[in-house]
C-alpha cells in the first residue's frame, strides 16, 4: 500500500448561499484592490497614482463639454447592453450587437440620405423604426437558424458582425458614396433635418436610453414575455413541458434584442456621427457584453455600470493627453480593473479553506 500522500494545504469550497451584504462587500474589496494594483502600475511608471486617478474623474466632468462627451459615450453602451441583456437572460449568446447596431444604422441612414425632405419629426420617427426593424431582422437571422437547425448562435452572431461591417464599406465605396467628396470614399453628412435634436446639450438619445432602462426592467420582471424568457433561459425542456412555444419565444426575444441594438445604431448615426461611418458601432457591442454581465443583467445595474465605464473611457483619454501617456496605458489600466471585477465573481461563488494542521 502506498501512503506517502500529503494533506492538501488549500481547498476550494463552493458556497451555496452568500448574503447580499457579503456580495457587495466582495465587490467593493475587488474595486479597491483593482485601484491599488493599478496604482502600483502607475507608480512603477513614475507617476503619482492619486493624481492620475483624480484626473480620470475630473477629466470626465471637468467642463460642460467633457461631461456631455461622457454622456454621449454612455448612450450607445447603455442601450446595446440592455439589448444583449434580453438575449442573455434567455441564455442566447448574442455577441452580435455590433452587427445589429450597424444594421439599424444602415436602415435609418437610407431615410436620412434619401428622404431628408420629409418633415423633421416624421423623418426621425421613420428612421427610428427603420433602425429597430433593421437591427431586429439582423438579430432574427441567427435566432431562426438556432431554433430551426440548432446552429451555434455565438459563432453565427459573431460572423454577422463582419458581414454588416462590410455592407457599410460597400455602400461607402459604391451606391451611397458622397458625390461631393471629390473621389474620397465616404458617405455624405446628414442634413440638419435628419439629425437628432439636442436636449440639455446632448442629443435626445439619452432620454430614449433612460426610458428603455425602465421598459426593459418592466418587460423582464412583470410581463408574461419576461417570465417566458427566464424559463426558457433556465431550461428549454421545462418551457416545453409548461406548454410554451420555445421557438416563438427565441425568435421574438431576438427581434427585440436586435431591435434595441438597431435603435442604438440609428441614434449613434443621427445623433453623434451625423453620417453613416464604418465606426458606428466601434466595439460598443462587445463592451456591452461585459457591462450587462457585470450588472448581473439588471437594467438599473446596467445603467450604473455603463456610466462608470464611460467615465473611465472619457477620463483616461483626458489623462492620456494631460500626461502625454501612450494610448495603450489606459487600456492596461482598464484591463487591470476588469480583471479584478470579473475575478471577484469567483470569490462570490467559492471560497478557499486552509486545512488545519494534520488534517484533524
Amino acid at each position, binding site marked *: *500500500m502506498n501512503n506517502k500522500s500529503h494533506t*492538501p494545504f488549500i481547498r476550494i469550497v463552493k*458556497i451555496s*448561499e452568500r448574503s447580499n451584504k457579503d456580495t457587495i462587500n466582495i465587490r467593493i474589496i475587488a474595486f479597491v484592490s483593482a485601484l491599488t494594483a493599478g496604482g502600483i502600475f502607475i507608480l512603477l511608471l513614475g507617476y503619482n497614482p492619486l493624481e492620475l486617478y483624480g484626473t480620470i474623474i475630473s477629466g470626465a466632468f471637468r467642463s460642460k463639454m467633457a461631461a456631455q462627451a461622457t454622456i454621449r459615450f454612455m448612450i450607445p453602451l447603455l442601450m446595446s447592453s440592455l439589448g444583449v441583456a434580453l438575449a442573455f437572460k434567455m441564455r442566447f449568446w448574442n455577441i452580435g450587437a455590433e452587427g445589429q447596431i450597424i444594421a439599424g444604422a444602415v436602415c435609418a441612414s437610407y431615410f436620412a440620405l434619401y428622404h431628408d425632405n420629409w418633415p423633421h419629426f416624421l423623418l426621425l420617427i421613420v428612421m427610428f423604426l427603420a433602425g429597430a426593424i433593421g437591427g431586429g431582422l439582423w438579430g432574427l437571422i441567427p435566432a431562426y437558424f438556432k431554433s430551426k437547425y440548432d446552429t451555434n448562435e455565438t459563432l453565427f452572431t459573431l460572423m454577422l458582425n463582419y458581414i454588416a461591417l462590410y455592407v457599410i464599406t460597400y455602400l461607402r465605396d459604391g451606391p451611397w458614396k458622397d458625390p461631393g467628396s471629390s473621389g474620397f470614399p465616404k458617405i455624405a453628412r446628414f442634413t440638419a433635418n435628419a439629425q437628432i435634436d439636442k436636449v440639455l446639450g446632448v442629443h435626445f438619445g439619452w432620454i430614449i436610453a433612460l426610458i428603455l432602462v425602465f421598459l426593459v426592467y418592466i418587460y423582464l420582471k412583470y*410581463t408574461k414575455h419576461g*417570465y417566458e424568457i427566464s424559463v426558457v433561459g*433556465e431550461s428549454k425542456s421545462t418551457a416545453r*413541458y409548461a*406548454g410554451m412555444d420555445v421557438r416563438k419565444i427565441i425568435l421574438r426575444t431576438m427581434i427585440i434584442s436586435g431591435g434595441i441594438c438597431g435603435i442604438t445604431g440609428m441614434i449613434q448615426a443621427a445623433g453623434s456621427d451625423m453620417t453613416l461611418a464604418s465606426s458606428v458601432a466601434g466595439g460598443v457591442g462587445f463592451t456591452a457584453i461585459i457591462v450587462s454581465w457585470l450588472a448581473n443583467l439588471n437594467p438599473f445595474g446596467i445603467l450604473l455600470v455603463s456610466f462608470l465605464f464611460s467615465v473611465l473611457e472619457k477620463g483616461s483619454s483626458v489623462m492620456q493627453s494631460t500626461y502625454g501617456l501612450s494610448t495603450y496605458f489606459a487600456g492596461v489600466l482598464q484591463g487591470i480593473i476588469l480583471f479584478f471585477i470579473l475575478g471577484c465573481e469567483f470569490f462570490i461563488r467559492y471560497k478557499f479553506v486552509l486545512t488545519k494542521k494534520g*488534517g484533524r
Partner: protein
Amino acid sequence: MKTNETNYAIELKGITKTFGKVIANDNVSLGIKYGEILALLGENGSGKTTLMNILSGIYYADEGTISIDGKEAVITNPNEAINSGIGMIHQHFKLVEVFSAMDNIVLGTKGKYVKSSALKEEILQMSNKFGLEIEPDKKVYNMSVSEKQTVEIMKVLYRGAKILILDEPTSVLTPQETEKLFIILRKMKEQGNAIIIITHKLNEVLAISDRVAILRKGQVVDTVKTADTNEKELTELMVGRPISLEIKRPETENNKTVLRVVDLSVVNEDGTIGLKDINFTLKSGEILGVAGIAGSGQRELCETIAGLMDARKGAVLYNKENIIGKTPDEIINLGISMSFVPEDRLGMGLVGSMDMIDNMLLKSYKKNKGFIIDKKPSRLLAEELVDKLSIVTPGVETPVRMLSGGNVQKVLLGREIESEPNVLITAYPVRGLDINSSYIIYDLLNAQKKKNVAILFIGEDLDVLLELSDRIMVLCHGEIMGIVDAKNTAKEEIGLMMAGKKMKGVDSDE
C-alpha cells in the same frame, strides 16, 4: 484471514464534513472488518453518500481520521483511495460506452502493457474466483445494466481493492439480478473482503448484511447486528420514531376508460426504439403502475402522452379524441397533467432558480389576461401548499433548488394536483424521498384516485407498486410484457417480466 475484535479493515473516527451551513457528517465513527458486510442505512440526506465519498477520496473531511489496517491514512483523491485498497462502485456507472469490458477494466491503471490474451486470461480467472459472469470482449453499449455493474465491480477488484463500497447497487436491478449480486457479494465476503453497501431498502439490508450502521441527520445513531434486528426496529432507528409501513389501496367505483393508447410506437432522436406497439387503457379512479428497469420506455411514454415527443405511429385517445399531434399547451388544457421527476429531481417540472411563486405560475401564467403577469394568485397558492402539504421552506420566495428533495417533490405534485387534472402522469414521485415524505405522496395520489382521477404511476420500488397500484404494466425495451392485477401477482413474476419474459395471453384491455 484472521480477524479479531480490534482489527478493523477500515476505521473512521470523528469524521465531520460540512457544506456551507449544512452538516453532512457529524462526528461519525465507524469500523468494518475483513470478511464482513456492513450495510449503511439512512434516509436521503442522512449523509451516507458523503461519508463514502470521503472514503473514496472524492471529498476531504473537515475533521476526523481514517485508519486502514490500523494505520492512519490520508485520502485526498480517488487514486489514493484505490492505492489504499478502497474501491467504490457508484450508483451511476462510470464506464466508456464504446470500449470493451476489458478496456474499461484496465483503463487508468498504471501497470506495464499486458498482452490482451494474457489480460483476458487474468480477468477470467479473477471473475471465476468471485463468481462474476463477464465477457471481456463485449462492448459496454451492448450490455445490460447488471452486466455493466459487473464490469464496475471487476474494475475495482482488478485494481486490488479489498474494501468495496457499493452505493445503492440494487436500485437499477430486477429482483433476480439483485439476488445474483448478493451471491457475488457473499462470495467476496468469504474471500476476506470488506464490503460496505449503501441502501435504503430494508429487506435487502436484512438479506445481505452482517451489521447495520444507521445514519440520521449526519450522525451514526446506532450500529446493530443484522441477526438481532427486524424491519420495524430499523425503520424506527432510521426515521427516529415509529411509523406505519402500510400503503392503502382505496376502492373506487364508476371507473370509465379515460385514456386509450393504441399501437403507439415512438422512435428516439438517436434512432433507437422508444416504444413499440404499446396498447393499454387507463381508467378513472385507478392507479396504473408502470414497472420496468430504468430506460425501458417510461420517459418516452410520459413525454408522448404529454405531447413533448412525436409518435411514429399509433394513437392516444383521450375520451375518444386523438391527442397525438396536439401541442403540450392544448394537452394541458384538456386536463392531462404530468409531473415527471427525472433523475436530477428538478428536471423539467420546476425551474430550480425560481421561487415557489414563479414555479406556481409555470402552468397558469397564460390564464390571466393582458400583458402583465399577476403573481397574487400564485403567491396565495404557494402559501396554501406550504400549509397543506407542510412544505419546509424558509419562505415562498426561496429558490426551490434550495429545498430538500421531498419538499421539491411536494411543490411539484402539489401544483399539478391543484390544477385539478383528469389524468395525472407521475414518474418516480418518491425518488430520493425519505419514508415519511413518501407516505405523504402516496396519500396525495390516493386522494386524487378517490376523486376519480386516472393516474399513471411510474415507479421503481416493486413493493410500493404492488401495494399502491390497481394494475401493473411491465415495460421492457419499449414493449409491454404484460399488464397484471396488482392484488394477486408475486414480485418475482414482475421481475421476470422486467427482464423480458412476456406474459402469456397479454390482455391489455382487461
